[in-house]
């Protein structure tokens, strides 16, 4: 479980996050939705500790993560996997070396065990015979899957995904969504996903929080979203004609 309590964040004297509180349960896919530039990524990066918050608390389990220094955060960070918008695979390393990276840094496994784990993770994301390829030699969708494989290499308790579907075609986007959902259920991970892809919201949104201009304006699940009365949420979610028709039918 991850809890965010009254979080505020300012950049260059411009306040980005306003008093945000939320609770993200383990074993479910938690979505943060909102327009681009309204603070989703800042919130996500604040939760993982890439940004220092001005006030409030970030709590992992029973530990106040935001009150710890970099060294103290290490034990929790080892339990975090993150999928970045652009995959953030290491260009100079092959697919195998990318997935192996966290194992090299933090595990005491022998080479054979590491290779077994790498192959297991790659198989789990449905990738085969790509071990020796470099990130530049594989497609965007495959890069995302390698990034997921790297994120789960150390059996994380927490998985963060920043716009996992950006730049992907709808079919590949569904594959990635399903993969994240299955992994969350399989390992009981606390998963937090930043997205503005409505297909993802409708497919895997077990808990959704809506951020608008740095403020949390709504919270619910994918069923509640059809009956939400928050105007800016409706404007955002049902922006397209297709979704407007879906809402009318529902």
């Amino acid at each position, binding site marked *: 479980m991850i809890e965010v309590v009254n979080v505020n964040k300012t950049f260059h004297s411009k306040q980005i996050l306003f008093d945000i509180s939320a609770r993200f349960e383990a074993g479910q896919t938690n979505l943060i939705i909102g327009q681009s530039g309204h603070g989703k990524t800042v919130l996500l990066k604040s939760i993982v500790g890439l940004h220092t918050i001005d006030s409030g608390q970030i709590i992992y389990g029973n530990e106040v993560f935001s009150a710890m220094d*970099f060294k103290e955060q*290490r034990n929790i*960070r080892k339990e975090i996997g*993150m999928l*970045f*918008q*652009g995959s953030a695979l*290491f*260009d100079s390393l092959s697919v195998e070396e990318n997935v192996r990276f966290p194992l090299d*840094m933090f595990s005491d496994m022998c080479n054979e065990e590491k290779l077994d784990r790498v192959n297991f993770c790659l198989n789990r994301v449905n990738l085969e015979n790509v071990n020796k390829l470099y990130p530049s030699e594989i497609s965007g969708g495959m890069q995302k899957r390698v990034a997921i494989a790297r994120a789960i290499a150390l059996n994380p308790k927490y998985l963060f995904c920043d716009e996992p579907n950006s730049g992907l075609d709808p079919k590949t986007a569904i594959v990635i969504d399903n993969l994240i959902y299955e992994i969350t259920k399989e390992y009981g991970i606390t998963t937090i996903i930043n997205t503005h892809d409505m297909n993802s919201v409708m497919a895997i949104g077990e808990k959704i929080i809506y951020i608008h201009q740095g403020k949390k304006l709504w919270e619910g699940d994918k069923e509640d979203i059809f009956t939400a009365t928050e105007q800016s949420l409706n404007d955002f979610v049902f922006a397209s004609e297709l979704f407007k028709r879906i809402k009318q039918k529902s």
Partner: protein
Amino acid sequence: MGLLFHLGRYALFLKRVFARPEKCKILIKQIFREAEKLGTNSIGIVAIISVFMGAVITLQTAYNIEMPFIPKYTVGLAARDSILLEFSSTIVSLILAGKGGSNIASEIGSMRVTEQIDAIEIMGINSSGYLILPKVLGLVFMMPFLVILSMGIGITGGWLAGSLSGVVSSVDFIYGIRYAFQPFYITYSLVKASVFAFLIATISSYHGYYVEGGSLEVGIASTKAVVVSSIQILLFNLLLTQLLLA
């Protein structure tokens, strides 16, 4: 204000770079990788520059001291001292500031803008130590070898140019390069080169590490890294010369 800001941030950056490494085994492996990338792969350019540098110094010296009362071996002596004292360490460092420095800044900068550095940080790894310490140690380790190589090739280039053009005989040139030899000149040159290597690696990494934006900013950071490293090399050249030779 800007200068103080950068100096302070550079000092804090160095503190993180030299923090205890995550795993020594991985660090050693990376040092060798970086030594190859930044050092061994620069042998070609160092050799080409050195041979021409030695040749030109010899020819210029010969034409400038063409007087009957100055012995011919002075050409070899002057070429040797110029190469040992100044050219091999400073010129090779300036060249490497351009080649290696831009390479380091653009590599680290690209990693920053594509969130690869964030990915390392999230795992709880000190990214500056993990990425930059091997580059600093690799280049500092390789630089003395490159400078010694440059000295040898530079003097050989001078000897070839002198004897082939006929401005100084082979016997006179070799006598000159052996005449009144001061071994300390080599120590002085190697100390300078090691300091320059440290400056190139840390300043270039610093500019790459703090890039904000996209590929355009990576290019700007890369250019800044080369310019600042080169200026620092010239500044420290003066300081070290005063300290070691005065």
